[in-house]
């Protein structure tokens, strides 16, 4: 079944003087069902005149629409300090993986999807090979040891959807064995983004360009399509057909944020997925904070848990100037007034509850070590200074070099969010715990386990063609 390929403008003249249209096979009713469904899917609300929403609001991930790139997925930058040093002996893979990141749902289904990776480095003694996630090898050219670090950019593949372990950074010195001890690779920063051009090609389909026309276009936003008007296959009268045109044009502008075909100006505000008043299901934007080091002698934060079952701010043991939280004393039950770090979250990403138990909220991965007492049980939570609320508690498994998933992290939209990280040991006292990495994300998984946002109101995906005949 071929579909009309041209985008038709709908000017006044074509429906005046308004002779009726015969609807012999229920076309009028189907038309109303389609337009109502489109309205619900685009705006994530009941259609005008309807009492309830039947179709999912589209969110570009699971209920329709092209995937939305999330920009920054993961980041670590030590500034003046290398976050990882590859010496001649320890050369090879970052064994435990770079960390965890969130890949936008749907991007991996595209053959051309990829990440953009940027690395700041200093290579001395020889050239180095670097490979990320089995992508093409990059040659890092030899530099003088006094040179400042430089950036290199390349792309890598997205091997799977959702949470992605970044384990594939491999380096190798390009030098004969007898000279290998002269070589060193310092990595100061690693940044990973989802990017647009690589992930969403747009060939082979028709772009939406409004048809040029000087004619007036109907574009009233409030046209209700009443099914009674076309019930029983009665002729579709001019009022109904006019309302349908209004609705179609309004949907075009609402969906594309462009003037309707043939219109000289745009009357309807385009939907933007922020739910800040202009419709569409909210879109979580991925990474909101990320920090990591691979140098075990220089963790991000270090704490000594003096007492069992007592929470401590993770920077409690940091010296003046480095300690950021300002509670007068430990344990961490004494509220801090200054944050360990700041984040910014998407509009209307406001959590509720202490800890939040229902979406929306932020989630995170924290990577830590407690080598001296590796079998003890460590727990981690985040403190949200803006609200005074805590995240859910993430409980370790009695091993060192562990990554824990922290759920239910409170957040407030529209302002800078201020956090501190708390840690405790529930099995003994006097444990030294080093934080090596922490990344926070807004996410929107569909499997229920990591979902951080509200389900759409409808119960039927618009993408199922047969459903359009339900009403």
């Amino acid at each position, binding site marked *: 079944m071929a579909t009309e390929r041209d985008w038709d403008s*709908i000017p006044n003249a074509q429906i005046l003087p308004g002779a009726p249209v015969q609807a012999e096979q229920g076309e009028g009713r189907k*038309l109303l069902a389609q337009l109502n469904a489109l309205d619900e899917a685009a705006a994530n609300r009941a259609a005008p005149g309807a009492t309830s929403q039947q179709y999912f609001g589209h969110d570009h991930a699971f209920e329709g629409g092209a995937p939305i790139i999330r920009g920054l997925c993961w980041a670590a930058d030590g500034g003046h300090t290398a976050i990882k040093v590859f010496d001649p002996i320890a050369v090879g893979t970052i064994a435990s993986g770079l960390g965890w990141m969130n890949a936008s749902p749907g991007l991996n289904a595209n053959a051309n999807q990829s990440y953009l990776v940027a690395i700041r480095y200093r290579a001395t003694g020889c050239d180095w090979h670097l490979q990320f996630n089995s992508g093409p090898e990059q040659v890092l050219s030899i530099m003088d040891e006094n040179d400042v670090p430089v950036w290199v950019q390349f792309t890598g593949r997205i091997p799977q959807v959702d949470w992605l372990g970044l384990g594939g950074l491999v380096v190798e010195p390009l030098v004969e064995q007898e000279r290998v001890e002269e070589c060193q690779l310092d990595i100061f920063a690693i940044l990973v983004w989802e990017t647009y051009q690589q992930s969403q090609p747009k060939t082979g389909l028709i772009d939406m360009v409004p048809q040029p026309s000087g004619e007036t276009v109907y574009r009233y936003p409030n046209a209700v399509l009443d099914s009674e008007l076309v019930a029983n296959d009665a002729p579709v009268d001019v009022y109904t057909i006019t309302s349908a045109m209004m609705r179609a044009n309004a949907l075009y502008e609402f969906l594309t944020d462009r003037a309707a075909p043939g219109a000289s100006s745009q009357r309807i505000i385009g939907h933007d997925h922020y739910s800040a008043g202009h419709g569409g299901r909210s879109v979580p934007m991925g990474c909101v904070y990320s920090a990591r080091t691979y140098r075990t002698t220089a963790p991000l934060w270090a704490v000594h848990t003096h007492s069992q079952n007592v929470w401590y701010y993770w920077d409690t043991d940091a010296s003046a100037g480095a300690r950021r939280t300002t509670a007068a004393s430990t344990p961490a039950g004494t509220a801090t007034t200054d944050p360990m770090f700041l984040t910014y979250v998407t509009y209307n990403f406001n959590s509720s509850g202490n800890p939040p138990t229902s979406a929306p909220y932020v989630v995170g991965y924290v990577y830590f070590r407690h080598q001296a007492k590796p079998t003890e049980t460590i727990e981690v939570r985040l403190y949200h200074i803006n609200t005074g609320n805590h995240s859910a508690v993430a409980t370790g498994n009695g091993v060192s070099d562990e990554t824990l998933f922290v759920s239910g992290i409170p957040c407030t939209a529209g302002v800078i969010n201020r956090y501190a990280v708390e840690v405790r040991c529930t099995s003994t006292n006097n444990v030294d715990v080093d934080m090596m990495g922490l990344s926070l994300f807004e996410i929107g998984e569909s499997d229920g386990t990591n979902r951080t946002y509200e389900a759409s109101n409808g119960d039927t995906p618009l993408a199922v063609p047969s459903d359009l005949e339900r009403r």
Partner: protein
Amino acid sequence: MLRHANAQTGERGRAVVMGKIATTSHGLHEILTGVAAPGAGQLVFLPHEHCYVGTPLARNAQYCADHGQHIGVGEGLRWAFNNSVDYWTPIDGGQDKSYDVGSNKRFVDFPPMIQAYATPRVDSDSTAVGAGSNPCRFRVFGLVTAQSATTLRFYNRTRNEVSATISLPGGYQEFDSTIPVSGGRVNEIDVEALGTTGQYVIIHQITVAETRSLSQPESAGTTLYTTATRP
């Protein structure tokens, strides 16, 4: 299914109008869902993705760095002022200066401190995002300690534009500023400080984010599509 051909079978009136509305409905369905319209055998129209069509969506982070508890000399995001107060000093890589205030000359023969990818159309020059007085921006915020009174600013060398200056009275505090951004590419950004010779400033944490409040004030339309009743 509502098909163009079906509508044209109408015996009376202006069936072609019905067909055009059907076409519009099909197209909107494909644009919205990214799958072929009901009854259609293949996808004809491009799905909207907010990078080409629709209101652009800003990302809330495009760069983030935090050095944790390491602020000693040569550690983390700490750099000393080695030159006179006549230079904006780049906070990176041991370089001495980035901008000579006296000669109004910038030195950019060093790698940028920050690389931050920006979403297509989230562009300070884009009239589609927010023209004129409220263009889109990168928001740059974080935590900083200045040993003494210092002025901080951010330079986007991709656009050769700087942020407004931030006056730090000395001590530990949060900072929050904005810089122009070029969408669809990596922006190269430097942090610059103007302070007292021999003093230091520490960037504890810094995040570069695209923000809606600054970058996307309103869509182009004027009337929100609501659930109002029959006109």
